[in-house]
């Protein structure tokens, strides 16, 4: 009897332990998946880079937009989204604060999408406006990329996003997917629905100068993303079936793509941008001038010596 009772007790204890362990593992896995989905925790800081700011005017006032401004804005919007999501899960403010602090520790908001959109905007503006400074209201972007990073970057530049500072006149932003679907609700929650199958065709932006109707299309080149990037992204972020090794591998690839957009020149990143030819030094012209200089100095010396001899 005693043996049977203790066996029953042991069995219950074992099943409880298994249940708790399973729950803990599930909790840990879900936390990992959520954090990877939102940003890229554990990603290394980007290398040193130099990107010129986007300079526009808003109702006559000059506004300088740096990649750091865009990153901070993207970060704030993602924190807000996360906070609302956690509130809906009935988390306390203390818990929310702790989760956000952990998940966004050291996150700059400069991700592959925001940096790509920033570079595309920078290139498009310089192609369409040249040395002129564009008025914010004259800028229109058509984005094919339904990610918060790219969308919020372009919302910040056009002043169409929520809580963008110093906005008097707004530009325009349209999100039209490669299949022609127009997404009008640009909230993070809605964008997530479209972030399923995103291949190279979504890394595309059209910059439009509204006053003239001129357009410039920016398409990311094949090869900027490491091989298997899109498949791995789907596995990690959409299907959420990736192993820790695959998550690590994706993190490395994510960093490589972000770093490329921060450090590489336009012609390495985008289709149709030609590398500026390096000017050959004018050796002949220089040699002619140098010869004239030497002859002239020689003549001066001869004249001086002759004068002295007399």
């Amino acid at each position, binding site marked *: 009897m005693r043996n049977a009772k203790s066996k029953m007790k042991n069995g219950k204890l074992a099943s409880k332990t298994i249940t708790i362990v399973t729950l803990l593992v599930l909790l840990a896995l879900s936390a990992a998946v959520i954090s990877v989905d939102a940003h890229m925790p554990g990603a290394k800081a980007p290398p040193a880079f130099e990107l010129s700011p986007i300079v526009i005017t808003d109702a006559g006032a000059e506004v300088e937009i740096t990649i750091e401004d865009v990153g901070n804005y993207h970060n704030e919007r993602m924190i807000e989204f996360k906070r609302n999501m956690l509130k809906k899960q009935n988390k306390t403010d203390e818990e929310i604060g702790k989760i956000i602090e952990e998940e966004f520790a050291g996150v700059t908001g400069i991700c592959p999408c925001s940096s790509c959109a920033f570079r595309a905007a920078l290139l498009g503006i310089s192609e369409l406006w040249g040395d002129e400074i564009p008025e914010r209201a004259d800028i229109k972007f058509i984005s094919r990329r339904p990610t918060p990073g790219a969308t919020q970057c372009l919302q910040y530049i056009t002043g169409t996003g929520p809580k963008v500072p110093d906005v008097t006149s707004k530009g325009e932003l349209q999100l039209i997917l490669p299949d022609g679907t127009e997404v009008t609700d640009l909230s993070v929650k809605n964008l997530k629905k479209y972030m399923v199958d995103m291949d190279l065709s979504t890394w595309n932006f059209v910059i439009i100068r509204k006053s003239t109707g001129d357009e410039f299309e920016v398409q990311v080149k094949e090869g900027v993303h490491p091989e298997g990037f899109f498949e791995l992204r789907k596995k990690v972020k959409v299907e959420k079936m990736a192993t820790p090794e695959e998550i690590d591998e994706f993190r490395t690839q994510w960093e490589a793509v972000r770093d490329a957009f921060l450090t590489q020149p336009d012609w390495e990143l985008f289709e149709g941008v030609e590398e500026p030819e390096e000017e050959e*030094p*004018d*050796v002949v*012209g*220089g*040699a002619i*001038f*140098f010869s004239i*200089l030497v002859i*002239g100095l020689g003549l001066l010396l001869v004249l001086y010596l002759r004068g002295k001899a007399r």
Partner: protein
Amino acid sequence: MNEVEEKFGQIYFAVLGAMALVFGVAELIASAGEGFTWGILDSSGAADPMFLPWRAIILISVGFFYLGSVKNFAEIHQLAKAVMGSIMIWIVAGMAIWSRIAGSIPGEETWFNSLEGFLASYAPPYCPEMFLLPFSLVIVYYILKEKEAEK
């Protein structure tokens, strides 16, 4: 100085003075903006942006000195004005040439420049004073003539 030489000097320095004045005004306008490079003529002030307005003022002064010397050119005081103008060109052009010589010797990442780099550093474009330099040397002829006349 005979009459032909005086007439030639008058026309020559009138043209040179007008050119200096045009260059000076162009440089003054250029110094208000980002400067300009036109063919082998450089008024961009890329190498010395602070010096560009000064160069313009010097060139305008040269223009006035030359043009002011034209009337009664053979007279010693008038000739002195042309000499002053030439000396001003020599100083500015001399500085430009000297900066080229000094810049041509060291390499970008090495102690000494390559032969190609050395010669390329003397390549155009050139500042207006360097163009005016050989033409301004004509004044030496008139100085020597004056010296001969004194003897």
